[in-house]
């Protein structure tokens, strides 16, 4: 890409950002909104710079917990989906309970997680895993069930075993759905980790909790900003893996020629 093309690509998403930041800054500077309600972006920026060491280590803690939670929910969710897709009866029996994970209000069970797992990491990881598991189950299941029937017939014709069919056709063809589930799950894992940290301690959750207590709304916003960057980083990582594994053959990742 030339510099001109790059600018053209970056400009559309940057303009609304610049406009919003400008508007917030003006509103606070001119006294339309008091700074204890909405902090001026410059204050948030100052907090990002002043507290960079604390925010940096908190962000790393949150990111690593979210990542572990995501990996856990990926393996558990995929295994669960494979089991469910293998039999209609199993799916009918257990799928409704998977929906439980989708609807569980994590903030209300977080205090229980502390009682089960204790303060610190285990609670945070469990919280991240619980909120991120459902999109993985739902999309993996959909993916496993939407293999092209002709291909399945072909495998049957060659009397392939169930395991062969799973690994060689159904899984590869489910990959696009699995990745789209992972994209949703990765953002949720960050949210789950932060909620877990409210109760379990550590990471950005603690920074937000403490900043809120001290009425430091600039710091709350700084932490929220970082947490959304973490979400973007995780989604970006999933996109990267998705492009690597699908780029050579699947329409969703193939470059237009």
């Amino acid at each position, binding site marked *: 890409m030339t510099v001109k093309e790059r600018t053209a690509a970056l400009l559309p998403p940057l303009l609304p950002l610049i406009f919003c930041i400008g508007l917030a800054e003006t509103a606070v500077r001119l006294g339309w909104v008091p700074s204890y309600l909405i902090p001026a972006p410059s204050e948030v920026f100052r907090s990002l710079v002043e507290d960079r060491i604390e925010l940096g280590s908190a962000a790393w803690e949150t990111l690593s917990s979210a990542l572990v939670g995501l990996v856990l929910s990926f393996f558990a969710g995929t295994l669960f989906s494979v089991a469910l897709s293998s039999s209609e009866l199993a799916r009918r029996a257990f799928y409704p309970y998977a929906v439980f994970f989708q609807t569980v209000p994590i903030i209300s069970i977080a205090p229980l997680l502390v009682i089960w797992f204790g303060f610190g990491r285990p609670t945070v990881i469990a919280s991240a895993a619980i909120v991120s598991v459902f999109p993985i189950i739902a999309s993996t299941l959909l993916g496993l069930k939407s293999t092209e029937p002709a291909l399945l017939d072909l495998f049957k014709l060659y009397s392939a075993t169930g395991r062969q069919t799973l690994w060689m056709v159904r899984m590869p063809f489910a990959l696009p759905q699995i990745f789209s589930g992972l994209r949703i799950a990765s953002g949720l894992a960050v949210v789950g980790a932060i909620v877990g940290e409210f109760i379990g301690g550590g990471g950005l959750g603690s920074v937000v909790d403490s900043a*809120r207590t001290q009425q430091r709304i600039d710091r709350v916003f700084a932490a929220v900003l970082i947490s959304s960057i973490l979400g973007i980083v995780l989604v970006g990582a999933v996109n990267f893996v998705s492009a690597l594994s699908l780029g050579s053959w699947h329409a969703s990742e193939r470059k237009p020629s």
Partner: protein
Amino acid sequence: MRIIFSLLASILLVSTGWAAQPAPVKLQLALNWKAEPEFGGFYAAKLAGYFEKRGLNVDITEGGAGTPVVQMVANRKVPFGIAAGDEVVIAQSRGADVVALFTVYQINPQGIMVHPERGFKSMADVFNSPGTLAIQNGSPHTLFLQAKFPKAKVKLVPYAGGIAQFLTDANYSQQCFVTSEPLLAKKKSVSAKSFLIADEGFKPYGTVVVARRDYIEKNPQRTRDFIDAVRGGWQEYLRAPENANTLMVKLNPAIDADTMKEAAEIQKPFIVSTGAPAGDLGKMAADRWTALTNQLQEIKLIKAKPAADRLFQNF
């Protein structure tokens, strides 16, 4: 006949009298926790009709962990709210003009509750021994204690309210109102010992009624009426807490009637200074606010120091 006429006339008078009375002013008082003896006087004022008598229709709303009452008052969402003294100072230092009008507690009942089996003799023992201490993240009393015991061995964890962890973990200590949580633990057959944070030298007024300065200036009479009713309510609650307790048990069934009664009794010395006249109930002193402001600056929670006489107003 004449009697009937005079009766009719008096009925007419009374009814026009009613009609002439203005509709009561609707007001909200936002609490920062569930209904409990800490707020008994407010409910007593409502039940005894002290608000009504002054033409006020006050709606008392309960809060929970993290209800941002000071910010709600600052943002005009509610005219009156409950906050801790230190929150008022921090709010003002950040540009929110919120003023303290009445304090329930002269001695702040905020404390640390521990298992007596651990044999702690002082707050220093709690901090300098291993174990877990649940305490509100980043709050002034936490920072004060951390600064006072810099070589703490205890592991600090977030405080989420309740006593569930305390009941199950023998090495667990937590922040509390010494007038409340130790009683709840006792109710569950777990004994508790507590240490007052005020005894360590951090003494913000506790459970303070706050309002915006411009609200007070625009509505001086209404504010005075409100505070008068609140003071009356607290005098009533100190004398006879039964009615308010019955109501509060209904609102917050987590605390049973016996515990409400016991807590109401235990908190009396925290509310009434010995020898002070009843009319002084809830009044605050400038030197306490100055001391608090200095402490908050020492622990770096505030940069700008608000003047003590702008932090509170006695009615």
